[in-house]
Each structure stands twice: as C-alpha cells, then as structure tokens.
C-alpha cells in the first residue's frame, strides 16, 4: 500500500475540485463565446462580423498563458479594478477556447445543407426560427467532435493557473513537493492520473451527447 502513496490523494483532490470547477465554468462560458462569435462572423452586418473576427484572430493568434497573465496583471492596472485569480482564469480560458470554438460553430453551420434553409423559408419561418429550430439542431451534432477536442485542451489549459497562484490540483502537487521532496515522482504520477481521469470523463460526456444528438437519425 505504501508504494501507492494513497496519502497524497486527499490534498490533491482538494485542488482537483478547484480544477474541475474551473473547467466546468470555463467550458460553459467558452461555449457561449463560441456561439456568439461564430454566429456573428456569419452575419451579414459588418458591425457584427468585424469585431467578432478581430476577437477570434487576436485570441487565436496569441498564447493562452500570455492572455492569462495579461488579464490577471495588466488589465487590473489598466482599468484600476481588482480581479481574483479565479475570475481572470475563467476569462482567459473561456475567451481563448471560445475563439477556437467559434470556428467549429461556423464550419458546422455552413455544413448544414442549403435545402434545409430553403425548406424553412418555404414554410415562412423567420430567420431566427430557421436558426433556432432547423439549422442549429442539425449543426450542433456536427460541432460535438470539435468541441470534444477543445474541452480537453481547456482542461489541460487549467494547469497554467498554477502560475498565477490559483490553488488548482497542479498547485497542490507543487505544495506537496515542498513538504516531501522525495515523493516527487509519486506526486506527479498521481497528478497525471487525475488529469487523465478528468479527460476520460469529459470524452465520455461528449460521446453521450453525440449519441443523444443522433437519436432516430441514421
């Protein structure tokens, strides 16, 4: 039993809770940004398209860690506000992965056959009804694989919040090291296992969503 170093788990799990909460919050926010930006980029109105495109290109073209540092250190100085590490983390993660997600949204909506839009027009649905009832339900199914990959990337990205001293599971692992340097290897093994377990759980969630989205259809 000693070889397994189970005593390392409780402190790690405390930080793991934070990691999971951070992941969940950021996924939800990233989804919202992805939908908004993806739809905005397909809009005919230039005042929607260009800001959305700028947002996507800036957040995709710069590094997540730089964004995290900027939001946590530079933004409060600029706006003279206080930002908790958690808030900064959720902002950085959701803005970054929301930008990548917007591409998934855009390409999925474009992939819905044109005939579906035409049938909806023929039935005199308004543009928002078309989007809500016909296009998005079909596009959603196509978005799931891309979203599945992105949420794993997001989970991995949460490890960076250690560098802004947010007490996630990586932070706890590094703390444990200071108490007992000799268990370094065991600590990191457990750390990796915990992340892998979370990744597997997320993948499972997406598989379930994919199955539900395909209900009744071939």
């Amino acid at each position, binding site marked *: 039993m000693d070889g397994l170093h189970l005593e390392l788990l409780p402190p790690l799990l405390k930080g793991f809770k934070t990691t999971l909460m951070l992941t969940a919050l950021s996924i939800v926010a990233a989804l919202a940004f992805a939908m908004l930006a993806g739809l905005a980029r397909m809009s005919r109105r230039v005042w929607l398209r260009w800001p959305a495109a700028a947002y996507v290109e800036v957040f995709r073209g710069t590094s997540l860690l730089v964004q995290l540092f900027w939001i946590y250190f530079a933004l409060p100085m600029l706006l003279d506000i206080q930002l908790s590490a958690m808030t900064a983390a959720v902002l950085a993660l959701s803005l970054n992965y929301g930008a990548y997600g917007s591409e998934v949204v855009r390409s999925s909506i474009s992939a819905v056959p044109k005939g579906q839009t*035409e049938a909806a*027009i*023929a*039935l*005199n649905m*308004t*543009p928002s009804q078309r989007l809500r009832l*016909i296009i998005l339900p079909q596009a959603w199914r196509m978005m799931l694989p891309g979203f599945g990959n992105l949420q794993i990337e997001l989970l991995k990205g949460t490890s960076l919040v250690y560098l802004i001293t947010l007490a996630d599971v990586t932070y706890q692992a590094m703390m444990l090291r200071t108490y007992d340097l000799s268990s370094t290897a065991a600590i990191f093994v457990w750390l990796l296992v915990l992340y892998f377990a979370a990744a597997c759980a997320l993948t499972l969630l997406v598989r379930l969503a994919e199955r539900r989205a395909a209900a009744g*259809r071939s």
Partner: protein
Amino acid sequence: MNQNNPINLNKTPIVRYRHITKAFGERTVLNKLDLDIFPREKLALIGPSGSGKTTIARLLMTLEKPSSGTIEVDGEMLWHMPAKGKLVPASEKHLHRVRGKIGMVFQHFNLFPHMTIMRNVSEALVHVRGLDKEEAKRRAAEMLERVGLSEHVGHYPSQLSGGQKQRVAIARALVMEPKIMLFDEVTSALDPELVGEVLEVIKGIASQGDTAMILITHEMDFARDVADRVLFTDGGSIVEQGTPEEIFERPQSPRLQAFLSRFLKEEPNGRVAAGAEP
C-alpha cells in the same frame, strides 16, 4: 405576345410576373418575363434544363431575388412595398406576410432530419401560424392521413422511402394552406417505381381544387392529366403555351416540337410516354 390565358378571361390573376429579369453573374436566366397565374389554376411548366422554369418558381418562393421587374401576389407586390407613394424594396416583415400565401415542394424533399414526421408537418403550424400544439398535431395528422402516411407519424425521415418522404413534404407544405403551391420536379429524384404514389397524391390535391398549382415536371403524361394550362420555356422566356391538347398534340413552334420529340421518345429513366411513336 399576349400572355393572358384564353381559358380564364374573367378572373383576376393571383400571381403576376411583370418584366421579370434574373441574371446570375454573366448568365441571364430570365429576360423580361411576363406571366399571369389564375386562382385555382393548375399550370405545368415544361422545358429543357436551364430554361428558367425552376427560377420562375424560386423567385416566387423568395428563394431568389429578381434582378429587375415585379411580382404581384394576391393583389400585393411581393418584392416591393409602398412607402410614401413610391415602391421600395420590401422589408423582411413585408416579405414574411406575403410569403405566407405560397408553399413549395422540393426535388430533394428537404425534410428536417432531426424531427419526426409529425413534427416535420406540424412545426411550421406551431411556430409560423401560431397554432397551439394540439391543434397543430390534429391538422398534421389529418394531412398525413390524406397523403396515406398515418402509420409513420412517429418515424424519422431516414426511415422512409423516397416516395414516402416526398408525400410528407407535400403534406408539410399543404397543411399551411397556401394559395399557390409550387412543385419543383418533385419526382425527378425518385426511383421509377415510387413516382406513381407521389403523382397520385398530387392529382388528389389538384382535383380538390382550392389551390393554384405550378408544376415543374418532366412527366408529360401527368402534366397532360392534371394541368389546365401548359407553359413551355426555353432560353429564359415562354416560347409557347396553351391547353395540354394544344401543347402536346399540336405543338406550333419548332423548339417545342424538337423538345417533345426528344422527350417523348425516351424519357430520362428510359420509359416511353404514352402517345409517342413506337
């Protein structure tokens, strides 16, 4: 050329195309087309592919915008609206109102794959007509009964044959009670043995009489059976029109004669239409 139909002289047209031109980039598909369609009229559109017949339908269904000209539906302009004494391009609200009088069935069905048959047919009744769910389901069930698909209400489109899918599509469009129904080559994508069931349904609708119908079709027999008037288009204009007897028995223009001879001898799926020479 006088476009007014000698058959329905005393009725006011329900659709009027006036000087309709439609160009796609360099290609002009329709050139200053004039066309009147009368209430409850069954109009067949025949002609070679690319002759503009589908575009005539799509302009009416607001799937394409005319490059110039006007279309009047039931007394109102479709693509234009009055504003301060002039005609300006129609707003989405105006389009939405007039579009409600037109329905369309597509060559490739375009059923909503993520909805059951019942929902496919009732969805627009709920969200566009504003009916409550129960009433919408009732009407949808009635319409599905009419097209012979009652036992499939809980199925999804992927579980149906092509002929069944097209009948659902007809039910979906018809349940909205349009004044004009467009049928765009609705049997061209079907296997030959499934064509008949769809044509039967359309004949049933035609005989019940209330809706004007524009039928774009290659099924000449069917056109002859159902249509009050047949239009032959070629190169973007109406070359000849008349009753089915006039068009099929006594074609006047050389282009129509050439088209019919090519067509009636051997149809795309290898069948020979009745009345053609052996």
